[in-house]
Structure formats: C-alpha cells, structure tokens
C-alpha cells in the first residue's frame, strides 16, 4: 500500500474527525470567500451593481409579476441587476432576524411578518437596521414624471398618504408599501342566489335573516351547512369591524392628549378603575352582537384555524367567509362556484337593539398594507434601493405590478383589476377607540372572551372576570408597558446623538447618514418630545385611575 493509501486507511478509522475537518475546511473557504467578495452579495455579471430584495410571497403570480417589474426596471437601468430572494413565510422572520444580526441582509426586505413575536420586534428592527425615509417622502417621485403626480410629494400619491409606511412608535417612515389589502365578506353567489335572491343584504338585520334561511336550507337538503365559516383567525375581522362601529365615540372621552388615537394606556386606565365599565351599553352591545352572530359560525369555531374555515367554505359546508383581498385569487381558483364579495354589513340606525350605538364603518386608511419594503442600513446601495422602490411605487408601475399580482395598488388613480374593485379601500370611516386587551390582561381577555362568545358564560360573568383580571394583572402589565415604551425613547436619543455628532463635526459620523443632519435632528427631537408627552399623559391617566379605584374601594 502506498503512503497515501496508508494515510487514508488511518484517517478512515476516525470518521467523526474526518467529518469535522471537512466541515471546518468548507467553513473557512466560505468565510474567506464572503469577506473577499464583500458584504451585500455576489457581484453581478459584467460588473453590474446588484440589488437584492427578500420577501415571503411564494405564490406563483407574485414572483412572476415581480420578475416583469424587475425586467422593466433593468431595461431602464442596464447597469443594475435586481434579484428576488424568496423565503417561505414560516421561516421568514427567523431568516430576517439572522440576516440582520449577521449583517448579511439584502438591500430591501419585506417587513411585518412573524406573528405575535414579530409584531413586537419589528419596531426594534426598524430603529436599528432600517433607513428612515422621512426625507424622501415629501419629495416628488421621479418616476411620476409626465403624470398628474409629477410635482406631488411621494407620500401624497398614496391612497392613504403613505400612512401604512409610518411607524407610530418611532414616528418615522420606514416602509414603502407596494400593495394594499382589505378584508371583505366572500360568499357563495350560487348558493345565496338560490336561497335568498340576487342581491346580498346590505344591513346586519338582512344578514341575520339570510343566515337563518341558509340554516333552513341546510336542514331541508340534509346537508351539513353552517352559514358563516368562522374560525379563531377570522372571527376577529368581524369583531374589529363591530368594535370600531360601536366604540368610535369613546374617542371624545378617552383621547386625553387629543392626538386622534386612544392609546392602550388611555383605554386601560379607565377600564381598570371602572370609570369605563364593560357593562356600558355600547361595549355590551359590541360583544352581544358578535355572540349573536357566532350562532351562525361552526360550533367551537374559536378552535378552528384559517385553513379549516377555508375548507368549509370551498367544500360548500359554509356559504360565507371573511378574509382578505390576498385570498381572492386562490379562492377563485379552488372554488367550484361563483364567489361574490361585499362589505361586512353593520346594523342600521333603525335597529332597535344596536342602531343607536353605531357610529359608522371602519376606515381602511393607514393599513400597514401588503408588500411593505424597508431599506436596510447595511445596504451598500441604499440610494439604488430607494430608486427601485420609487419605480415600483410610481403610478404606472404600481398599477401594472398589482394587476399582475391580483392585488390592490396603493397609488391614487392606479386601477385595480375589475374583479378586485369591491376590495378598494374605504377611507371614510372611524378607527377603534377602545382596546379591551389591556397590558397584562391580554391572556385573560383572550381566554375569557372566548368563553363568553362560545356561550359558556353570561355577559355579567364575563365582565366580572375581565374586571378582576384588569385589577389583578393591570399594575404589572402597565409597569412593563411603560418600561417597554422607554426603549423607543432610548432609540430616538441614539439617533439624535448621532445627528448631533455629525452637526458637531465628529469625523466619520456624517458619512454614515443620509439627508441634512440639522433637519433630521430637529425631526427626531420633535418626535422625541411628542413621545415624552404621550408617556407623561399616559402615566398621569393611569395614576389617576389607580387613585380613583383606591378611593372608591372601601
């Protein structure tokens, strides 16, 4: 046996060691390769600049629509290559987290996934890793040249003034929404026409009658038929629509700092002390209506998930379902019946039980929207990334893109597909003015409200249990809430300090920033004191309600 053969024979006796060495060698080569190539991705062909953007929309229509947009953009900019990075939704948030921490993130990232965990973490990501866009939103979008928006500030070209791209906690724009999503009631048109007639009821009263007709129809046919395919996922869409309608007028009472929104603390304090009671008629009406409606959902619907509800609808076991415009195409493809779309009907003013409490529908302005893209600070091509997003959010291109994707455009005047017109966002409406899931009591609220809505307990028991939870869990919850909000203030101070360093001429500070430092510094400080004011107001409201409760408790 040769020397090499003997060496190999010896090494083969230690397979684990061999494997370790192999992995080590590969790792070293990958690390060296990455460092040599530099951060931000592989070089493009023929020395093109490469822009990468990541998203989780794996549906075939989305990918191909983006490919078309990219092809058009690359025609305009032959020196730029744009690449899509597709990550499945289940792992997307974790992938983003890793990429951002590891400083290997692409230039643009679709924001906003990750469920409950993500909801809390995205503001932190924005502050740390994403470029604020404030200085750009008031400039015209260069790609709207030749259109009616040629001189219009970019944000004003959006159907909602780009409110969907604004982060309230950081008081800055971080996202460029490329699509809008709205929620509607989908129905089996063929079945409804057979049972009810050609026109879908526009009021809650008519809607309930329809549900009863459908139940009778099911019994007559010997079918398993549930009027509405409710589930733990989509019943909240009904609930939120009614919550807004019934509680919009609480804003006058609860919005103590007059900023136009009722914060969680502004809502929590009065609910904690009882200054706002769960047995007040509009609030009670809100819950009672949803419980009444849930009689037409599947039994135990709160344990059903979205897919089960969709299954019931598509199999003809349910005549209606609420979901978003994002599902329109896939439901259309899978269903064997014609699908109709309408708004969730609210009680009319004449409704003897609920009419007096209904202020109006929910506004769809300010929705975070679909495909909100953020530009990472790590990107070496931030200006090009912005350019690409401006292209995608221009009047003509946004219309083309969304028509190809079967989604709703976000730019005013951009026409959606004809069959998506029922999904066009309604700006006119109210925002919710009360939040029942107070800090600390979210779990108790989730659990107790489901007991009430499933008919296990009476409203009085529900209100009593919830009030007990507010009082038991509220203090610790509010403490955590205020401490967590301090983090936003800290983040603003960090940004302010950097801008101040640039203004003071600290070498190396200015080149890492975009925009005029003095203007941005002012903007940050204004947002900072606005947050301070909110904090002080919220603490005052909470402290007052604590004292109120102490005084009223014998």
């Amino acid at each position, binding site marked *: 046996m040769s020397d090499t053969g003997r060496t190999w024979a010896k090494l083969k006796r230690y397979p684990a060691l061999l494997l370790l060495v192999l992995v080590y060698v590969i790792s070293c080569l990958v690390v060296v390769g990455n460092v040599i190539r530099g951060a931000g991705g592989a070089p493009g062909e023929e020395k093109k600049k490469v822009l990468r953007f990541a998203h989780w929309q794996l549906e075939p229509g989305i990918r191909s629509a983006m490919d078309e947009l990219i092809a058009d953009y690359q025609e305009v900019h032959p020196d730029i290559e744009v690449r899509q990075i597709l990550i499945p939704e289940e792992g997307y948030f974790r992938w983003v987290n890793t990429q951002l921490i590891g400083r290997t993130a692409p230039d643009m990232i679709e924001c906003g996934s990750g469920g409950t965990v993500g909801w809390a973490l995205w503001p932190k990501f924005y502050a740390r890793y994403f470029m604020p866009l*404030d200085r750009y939103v008031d400039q015209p979008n260069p790609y709207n040249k030749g259109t009616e928006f040629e001189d219009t500030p970019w944000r004003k070209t959006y159907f909602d003034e780009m409110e969907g791209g604004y982060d309230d906690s950081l008081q800055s724009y971080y996202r460029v929404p490329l699509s809008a999503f709205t929620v509607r009631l989908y129905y089996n048109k063929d079945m409804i026409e057979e049972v009810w007639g050609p026109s879908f009821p526009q009021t809650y009263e008519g809607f309930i009658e329809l549900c009863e007709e459908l139940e009778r129809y099911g019994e007559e046919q010997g079918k398993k038929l549930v009027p509405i395919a409710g589930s733990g996922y989509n019943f909240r869409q009904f609930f939120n629509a009614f919550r807004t309608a019934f509680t919009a007028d609480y804003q006058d009472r609860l919005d103590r700092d007059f900023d136009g929104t009722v914060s969680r603390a502004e809502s929590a304090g009065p609910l904690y002390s009882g200054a706002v009671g769960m047995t007040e008629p509009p609030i009670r009406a809100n819950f009672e209506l949803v419980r009444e409606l849930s009689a037409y959902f599947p039994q135990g619907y709160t344990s059903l998930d979205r897919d089960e509800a969709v299954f019931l609808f598509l199999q003809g076991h349910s005549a209606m379902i609420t979901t978003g415009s994002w599902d329109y195409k896939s439901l259309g493809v899978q269903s064997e019946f014609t699908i109709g779309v309408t708004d969730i009907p609210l009680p009319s003013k004449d409704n003897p039980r609920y009419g007096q409490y209904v202020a109006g529908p929910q506004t769809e302005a300010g929705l975070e929207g679909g495909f909100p893209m953020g530009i990472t600070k790590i990107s070496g091509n931030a200006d090009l990334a912005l350019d690409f997003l401006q292209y995608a959010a221009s009047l003509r291109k946004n219309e083309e893109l969304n028509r190809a994707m079967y989604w709703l455009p976000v730019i005013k005047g951009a026409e959606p597909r004809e069959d998506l017109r029922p999904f066009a966002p309604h700006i006119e409406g109210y925002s919710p003015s009360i939040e029942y899931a107070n800090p600390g009591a979210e779990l108790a609220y989730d659990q107790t409200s489901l007991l009430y809505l499933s008919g296990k307990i009476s409203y009085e028991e529900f209100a009593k249990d919830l009030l007990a939870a507010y009082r038991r869990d509220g203090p610790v*919850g*509010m403490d955590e809430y205020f401490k967590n909000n301090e983090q936003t203030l800290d983040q603003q101070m960090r940004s302010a300090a950097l801008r101040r360093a640039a203004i003071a001429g600290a070498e190396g500070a200015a080149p890492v920033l975009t925009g005029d430092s003095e203007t941005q510094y002012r903007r940050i400080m*204004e947002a900072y004191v606005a947050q*301070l004011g909110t904090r002080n107001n919220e603490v005052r409201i909470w402290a007052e309600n604590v004292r109120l409760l102490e005084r009223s408790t014998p």
Partner: protein
Amino acid sequence: MRFRLIGIVLLALLGATLGACGRGAERGGVEDVLKEGWRAYSTGDFDFAIQKFESVGEAPGATPEQHFSALLGLATSYHLRSNPDLEQARLWYERLGELKTGDAQRQSLLGLGRVDLAEGKSGAGQTNLVRLIQDFPDSVEANEAVVHVADSLFKPTGKDSEPGQFSLAGGAAVERGLNMLEERLRAYPHNTLATTMHLMLAGKYIELQQFEKAVGHLLAAEEEGIAGVMLQSVTLWRIARIADLELKDYDLAERYYAKYAEEFPRTTLYYRATKSLERVRALKKEGGA
C-alpha cells in the same frame, strides 16, 4: 510526516480566515475606522463600535478632530447602548471635556448632565445642564439641555417595589420646567429646537388642562415649522380638537378641521375631521342664530 503536513495546511487555513476577517480593521486608516465605528453605532452594534473607537485612541498620528470623534463615540456608545455602562460613559465624557474645543466641552457637559439624570442624580444633572446653557447659550447642545432639564422636572417616577404605582411630578418642579422652556423661547424664539420646545410645552399644558396655553404653543409650533409630516397632521388635529371640545372656539376649530381635511385627505382621521367640521359649522350657525 503527512499528518504534520495536514496540520500545517489546516493552521494556514485558519490564519487565512482570521486574516481575511481582520483585513477590514487595517484597511484605510483612522478615518475609515471612525466611519466603521459610527456605522456600527448606527446599527446598534455597540461592542464593535467601542472597539473601533478605542483603537483610534491608541492609533499614532490621529488628529485632534479624530480624537474628539473617538471620545464622543466611546462616551455615546457606553451611554446609550441597551444596557448602559454609565460609569464608563461618565469617564469618557470627562475625558472629552479635557479637550479644549467648544464642541468637546458642550458635548461633555450635555453627556455628563444626562448621565447624572440617568443615575437618578437629578440635582447634579440639572446643574451640569444649566452650566452648559449658561456657558454656551447659543449652542444646539444648550437647546437640547433645556429639553432634558424640563423632562427631568416633568417626569413621573415609578416604584420598583410596587409595580403600577407612580408619583407624578410636583407642581413646583413642573412650574420650573415650564418656565425654563418659556424663557428659552423668549430669548431664542427661532432656535434649532424651537418647535420641539413649543410641542413640549403644548403637551404639558394639555396634561395640566391649560388648554389656551396649549393651543398657543401648538400654533407657534405650526408657524415655526414642524419637520415630521405625521406630527404636522397631529398638531393640526390637536388644535382643532381642543378648540372644539375644550375652548369652544368654533372659528378656530372650523379653520383647523378644514385645514386638516385639505392637507391630509386620505388619512385615518380624515373622516372624523369632515364630520367634526360639519358639526362645528352647525354649532356656529346655531350660535349665530
């Protein structure tokens, strides 16, 4: 012999890897190191930022301006990172203060004052910040110092042992804070942070339910110019709302609801603004009749 060779190759690979990773630190010189430090700071990688700034301190031939940047970077990183090291921050702010330039002095005083406040030494903190205001009255840092002093006087305090219990700032402290802001605006009505101060005063007056004064400052903020778009919309809304619900000044309310609806026609509050405008107009008509 062969195993020795394999071992040498593996070590060389390790060396190449470390060398490649370390290349960034030696590239370009002090200016690039500072840039990397501030970039790391901006993305929240404070440990790396501190490392970079510290290496400038040791670098031969760094200019005074570069030293200033490095010291400021160190102090700020220790001060403002997620788990602040206030002791280190104080040390570096003091070292910064030893540089004789105005920028360094101001940043040092501002930083020391804020570190004192963060440590709960409100007296010492306010003293440092007031000294900054007195020694450098025209500076950007003095403006910010006023804001921080006012905040320290307005801020409620929680009790760790009793979650959910808060002590609100006392009347005298609040009065002091308000006076400080008002005085600053009187002396420097168009300073860099004039709008900030107006908004801060407005917020406090709203909290104290002194709505006339609040609206006065909101109007002044609007006139001075608000940099943030959404804050502009909130300010217009606030003026309209307070005028409507608290001051019963329906002319002002009408003007500002209309202004809101015109300038922010597609936002969440637009519908409320139009409905409120209708209501206010009806009230005015009633009042007129």
